[in-house]
């Protein structure tokens, strides 16, 4: 490209955009391959038998088998892990978004005593290392008899998901003109009526994004959910760690379990693709 610019100055102007597009396509292709290769390897392994995984090195499964998935989907100690995870994740998402909605409205519309401090304090909880809270959580929930229940994990995950939901929703709500609120009050709407009937439809996409991020962060977290459960509410993530440490042999099933944990995220990501940066930046992009 530098050669072209020095020798053929007038032509380079026209040629440059075309060359640059090609260059960026190569960069993106390489990057996406880097992204997908480890995931491909996991899928590849999940479709092999253990004998093939350990015996022969192959880039794709020679004897395609779905046995590993069958094992997971028929063994309650495996598939209940998914059920448990989904139960507490959904509980957490519902709780987080429900309590965050009015709070985010308050932060986006009003100034009140201590609002800035409160907003900052919420952020510190999003940033708090779960490792600091693991042991106290364990004792707290044991002492109130909630240990090994779904609600315990759901409440524990509120630690970082409620602040996240408040921040994201606040980001979306400030985009709604205040005149809408005022008009509604003049028209005689009560606050709850206005909030549910008029305001929530306006920020529907924001609620969707907040719910998605609560779902996601609760789904990917392991430390707290593992600490707070033993049998009845054991999440899939923790079922997997047990297999790794105990036998270290059943690679095929482990890989299949991993692939199945990627599925929920992969399914919904298309819907939030344009908001994903905003969500990760706590509603501030």
């Amino acid at each position, binding site marked *: 490209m530098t050669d072209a610019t020095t020798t053929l100055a007038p032509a380079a102007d026209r040629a440059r955009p075309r060359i640059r597009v090609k260059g960026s396509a190569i960069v993106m292709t390489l990057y996406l391959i880097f992204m997908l290769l480890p995931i491909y390897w996991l899928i590849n392994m999940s479709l092999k038998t253990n004998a093939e995984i350990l015996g022969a090195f192959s880039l794709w499964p020679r004897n395609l088998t779905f046995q590993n998935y069958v094992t997971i989907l028929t063994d309650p100690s495996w598939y209940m892990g998914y059920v448990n995870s989904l139960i507490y994740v959904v509980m957490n998402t519902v709780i987080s978004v429900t309590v965050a909605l009015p709070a985010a409205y*308050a932060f986006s519309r009003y100034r009140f005593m201590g609002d800035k401090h409160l907003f900052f304090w919420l952020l510190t909880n999003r940033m708090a290392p779960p490792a600091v809270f693991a042991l106290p959580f364990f004792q707290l929930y044991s002492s109130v008899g909630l240990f090994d229940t779904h609600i315990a994990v759901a409440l524990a995950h509120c630690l970082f998901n409620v602040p996240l939901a408040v921040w994201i929703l606040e980001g979306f709500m400030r985009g709604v003109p205040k005149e809408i609120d005022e008009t509604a009050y003049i028209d005689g709407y009560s606050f709850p009526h206005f909030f549910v009937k008029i305001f929530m439809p306006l920020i529907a996409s924001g609620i969707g994004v907040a719910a998605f991020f609560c779902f996601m962060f609760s789904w990917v977290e392991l*430390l707290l959910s593992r600490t707070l459960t033993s049998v009845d509410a054991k999440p899939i993530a923790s079922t997997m760690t047990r297999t790794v440490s105990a036998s270290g042999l059943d690679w095929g099933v482990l890989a299949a379990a991993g692939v199945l944990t990627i599925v929920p995220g992969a399914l919904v990501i298309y819907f939030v693709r344009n908001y994903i940066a905003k969500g990760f930046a706590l509603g501030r992009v």
Partner: protein
Amino acid sequence: MQEKTVNHKAWFLVLPVLVLVAFSAVIPLMTVVNYSIQDTFGNNQFFWVGLEWFEEMLASDRMWNALGRQLLFSGIILAIEIPLGIFIALNMPKRGFWASFCLVLMSLPLLIPWNVVGTIWQIFGRVDIGLLGYTLKAIGVDYNYTNDALDAWITVIVMDVWHWTSLVALLAYAGLQSIPDAYYQAAKIDQASRWSVFRYIELPKMAGVLMIAILLRFMDSFMIYTEPFVVTGGGPGNATTFLSIDLVKMATGQFDLGPAAAFSLMYFLVILLISWVFYTVMTNLDRREG
């Protein structure tokens, strides 16, 4: 930004959040404070030791070593992920089908449970069954992340780059999208070079989101636990024992509640400090945009 009205009744709207977060944050935090100033002989008999644990932790090599490793790790991944993320964002398609295609595929690692990320790389790097390890062995590189500290570090860093660079790229991309076409046209008329377009148009416009990206990546890497724990378990030796891993080892493995609590609080103070920087940056950003 719109002018906000003063209304102290808004507190009632915030109350549910306050109660919930107080239950899941303040009570546990006070438990930690409680432990950090007491010692126990078991049987739930505690007695006051004052600041002894804090002094002990501040004097111990163990915490400083973990902190050193942590800072080194965070520094390295920031140095790689931020420039790489910007580079990727500059090369992403601007709109249309391919833009969505890239966005969706790039986001994929961000949505994988953290222990599965660890599992993926644990498998991927193994010399007997993993693509990466096997390939490296085949071309004659002596690579073994379970025995060699340097290999373990490289594996954990590459894993983190794989896991989180897309976040930086997505944020930078969002910043780039906000630049009006007129800016580029003006630059073209001025015959600005590619570098000056980047330096004087794109970089300043991205500065805000990049700041967020840097802080987020710093914070999250500062609390990293699950991924290195699954891949290396903190080893070989203590080579990849970062702050969180060390803390969990101390608290649940050895049940040294007092020192672990003192450790937690100092850890938390560091986080608090960074959070404050983060908050200041965020609110300044809001003000500038509004």
